[in-house]
């Protein structure tokens, strides 16, 4: 990482710590904000957060590793999460899965080369009666079939 980028990130975190507070309970808010903006929380960011909140870096890492929606590795601009739980599975998840993989040319857990989309599985989204379901960023898509899923994917930038 360039020194300039590091300085910008430090400044950003400093501002967030000021905004949300430096108590332990503010940690998640800060992590979510960093994740949203930078699509991941880098080693450097974790240690900066720890320094500014006066906690240990390993505690920050522990929290990040606990939550699926926080990551230490860079993710794409959009994250597509396909429900892998039993109800969606029986409603035809497999067909959607194959179509999505073929369309993007990547498998689950990977990111497209242009950083447009990351593919992931997720546990139950609570849409068991409307499966198969898929979560793109913060929006849920239900009653999917392969064609529909591919169309949705082609629309996102």
């Amino acid at each position, binding site marked *: 990482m360039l020194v300039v980028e590091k300085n910008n990130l430090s400044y950003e975190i400093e501002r967030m710590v000021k905004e949300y507070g430096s108590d332990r309970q503010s940690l998640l808010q800060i992590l979510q904000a960093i994740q949203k903006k930078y699509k991941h929380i880098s*080693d450097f960011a*974790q*240690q900066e957060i720890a320094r500014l909140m006066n*906690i*240990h*870096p*390993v*505690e920050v*890492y*522990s929290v990040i*590793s*606990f*939550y699926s929606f926080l990551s*230490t590795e860079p993710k794409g601009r959009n994250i597509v999460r396909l429900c892998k739980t039993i109800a969606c599975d029986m409603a035809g998840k497999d067909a959607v899965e194959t179509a999505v993989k073929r369309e993007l040319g990547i498998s689950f857990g990977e990111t497209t080369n242009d950083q447009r989309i990351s593919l992931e599985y997720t546990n139950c989204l609570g849409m068991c009666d409307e499966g198969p379901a898929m979560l793109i960023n913060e929006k849920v898509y239900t009653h999917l079939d392969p064609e529909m899923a591919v169309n949705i994917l082609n629309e996102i930038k």
Partner: protein
Amino acid sequence: MSKSENIRIPVSQQALIVEKPIDITAIGGTVTIQINEKKVSVPFGTTILDACKENQIHIPTLCHHPDLCIAGVCRICVVEVEGLRTLQTSCSFPVTSPIKIHTSTEKVRKARRHIIDLLLSEHYGECYSCFRNENCELQSLAKEYGVDGYSFGHILEPKYKVDKSSAAVIRDMNKCILCKRCVRTCIDLQEVGVLEAIKRGHDTHVGTFLDKPLADVICINCGQCINRCPTAALRANDPSDEIWNAIDDPKKHVVIQTAPSPRAAIGEEFGIEPGHSFTGELNTALRRIGFDKVFDTNFTADLTIMEEGTELIRRLKKVVVEKDSSVKLPQFTSCSPGWIKFIEHFYPEYLDYLSSAKSPQQMFGAVIKTFYAKESKIDPADIITVALMPCAAKKFECNRPEMNASGFKDVDYGLTTREMAKMIREAGIHLPEMPKSNFDEPFGNASGAGLIFGATGGVMEAALRTVYELVTGREVPFENLRIEPCRGFEGIKQAYIKLDNCVESYNFLEGVELKFIVAHGTANAKKVMEMLQRGELRDVHFVEIMACPGGCLGGGGQPIPTSEEIRRKRAQAIYEEEEGLPVRKSHENVHIKYIYENFLTDGPCGELSHKLLHTHYTKRGKYIS
């Protein structure tokens, strides 16, 4: 018809109706509870576990440790509380109302057995090939509750790679039962913050920052986590096989130096109650094992006092007489390798405050491979020096690249008390039965000042005995040389001693109040460093810091288990042994006088001692890339 019969509520959601205390003043007073039909009164807020302990009712524990905060994660200590639907963890349940507790119902016994069974199903390996065999809390619980099969299966393949990167601590997460005692030790007790629970659910494991190997993170190697691990997930890096090889090699001259703390604790490994010293017996046992010479680390502890004391007086002179503002005061002790690594990581900008003197272990290594080799006409290349230490960090220290002042690796192996006990057992020796014998010449028996290095405050006490007498020509004004302000287990102790009627050469210190601080455990060290950062230590001259709670006697290489009570007993054993010694001041040790007359002829902090007995430190910082 009562209200509860009228409305159909599932049992699980019925409100808990607890008898209100008859006397409202019970808050802050005592509460009468019933444990297994027995009525007992306990102070308000006592945990069920403590209440039971007080009344001789045994409750098994696993994640609970007297040195650490309550966690309530292992759930082995569950009991039945009348009126509550589920079993309650007794370690984390404060008594606030007159409850009725049952500690051994069928439900409780079954739950405990299931918990142990489930822990065993994920616990890789077999007991007979485990170094914690017969000293494992999980094993003894399995025995206690008659778990004699794996009803939930047993993993046959290791899930995690064993982390052997560190010179001091080895982590094997396959044996981990996630009690998180190491996490609480690292974060709460020591405030180092290396270990934490990583990931979630079935994937949870105790790990480091970014799951890096232990050698790459800010671990200070204090080994306190080892002392508190109930299973074999954490252990010290054991060099005993290499030492056996050296002993079996007729060409090698193997010498061992023994630190003061292992003597006061090694008996525990042989079933003796804490608080008994086995100095003489240990010497004999070590000779029978095959060590060619057995030396006393206290000799170099005395040497440390001479060097560190001289350094302190020189710094004082520069500040008081020459008004040199570049000289850093207070001077911090440098005996504890855990503390050294701690300051290198967390406060690298304050390394100038550390005394440049090496720790007694490293001084001895350098002295053995130079002075001793010359005196006894042995090629230093053939000498293997082993250090028996209560410490895991000493293993890291002896492997520091700068520790080769003699032209060789000063100390070849650092051995902990536990590993030494294992070697003694392996040699077929029962330590308490050994006849007593003395240490070998040319270093002989050292002074009592060196011996008390083992307890927190000991270095300070030893240094004061020498510095005060050097400066004023009189003994320290404490009864029987017991400098009480240095003793005891308070986290941070502060006191001062006034230097008056000084001898002529130290006139410049006339009337100076020598202020000192003693701290043990890195959590307290952190507090002292924060005081230093705030500028509150401007009038303090000398600070002793030991990385482990209780000082060396509570070190990471000492017998397991540990608690404040055990540490107190070990300290008592050290102080008792010390009072019986003929020489109790470092500068009165005849061997110290001899070495300054015949080898280190330019005196303490002279050129040769600077080369051999002093070191420099590395600015490590805590940023991990």
